[in-house]
């Protein structure tokens, strides 16, 4: 169910995104930082699922709030002539890597546990 929703959402989003009018170059930074923020939220959500403390409200609010906040920060940076979006980018990407590490560790551990069990059953 969730996977179907994910796939349908992705396909529709991609189709509309491809057919959407080209946004002006000036706003491309905002969109890019929003994308990074959203991806960060996605990885955070996956991590929380693995940790079994996933909360939909937290995930969705994080997803949209982070995006909007990063856009706002980028806008402020433009007004201040300071590349604040770089700071946001560093934080998001850093968190993404942390979450990726957690996900990787989780699956590796799962895998090793499975291997161990297999060996044990083979030994028996």
């Amino acid at each position, binding site marked *: 169910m969730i996977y179907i929703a994910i796939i349908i959402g992705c396909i529709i*989003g991609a189709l509309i995104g491809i057919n959407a009018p080209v946004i002006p*170059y000036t706003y491309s930074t905002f969109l890019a930082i929003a994308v990074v923020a*959203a991806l960060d939220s996605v990885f955070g959500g996956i991590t929380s699922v693995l940790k079994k403390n996933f909360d939909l409200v937290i995930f969705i609010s994080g997803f949209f709030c982070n995006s909007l906040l990063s856009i706002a920060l980028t806008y402020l940076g433009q007004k201040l002539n300071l590349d604040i979006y770089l700071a946001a980018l560093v934080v998001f990407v850093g968190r993404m890597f942390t979450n990726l590490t957690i996900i990787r560790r989780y699956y590796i551990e799962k895998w090793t546990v499975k291997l161990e069990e297999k060996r044990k059953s083979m030994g028996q």
Partner: protein
Amino acid sequence: MKIKVNKEKLVMSITIGIACFALMLVMFMQFKMVKQTDITAIETMRESELKLELSSWNEKYKQLYARYEEVVTKMEEYKNESVTDQKTAQLLEAELEQLNELLGKTDVVGQGIVIQLIDNQGKKISEDATVYAISKENLLRVINELFAAGAEAISINGNRVISTSAVYTIGTDILKINNGNKISSPYVINAIGNPDYLKSSVSGKGGIVDELEELGHETSVDIRDEIEIEKYSDDISTKYIK
């Protein structure tokens, strides 16, 4: 598969689907934008590149503007020069005209005198003296006296006397002038210049006209307010002057 789905799970699926939709939408819009901007020139460039480009164009503009101003000032100079050139051209033209007049290449008009000499060759003035013909020397002396008195243009029977003119005889008494134009009595010599000076130089006691008169020829010297002297009719060309 169970048709009845957990309500909580449905909400979760829809929200996550919406999130995915939003994410993909923005991502693909961004992809498209980046792809598009990679193709065209100015929109593709990053802001820093644009800044660089802008500054370089600014530089170019400044250079071109400097060059433009240079050219404008040069044009101004040329304009001024052309004005002065026009002046010099006018001066040169005036000079050329004057020189042509002096040289005999143009018809000229001015005040002067007309000398008429009628040859009385063979006429007896006494028992044993006849009149000799007017010789080239006589004519040359007339011309010489006139030039000495400041004549600016002289012609004999319509033949303009120029710097290379010669009066000479062929045979016994055929007078020729310039490049072989035959001249004969009556000799009409037109001279442009100060009429008084010209007249006093040839007539009066000791003057060539007076002498010719004494030798038995008919002469007359008239002062005219306007004499027209034609231009030199033959070709003026040099062959040996280098």
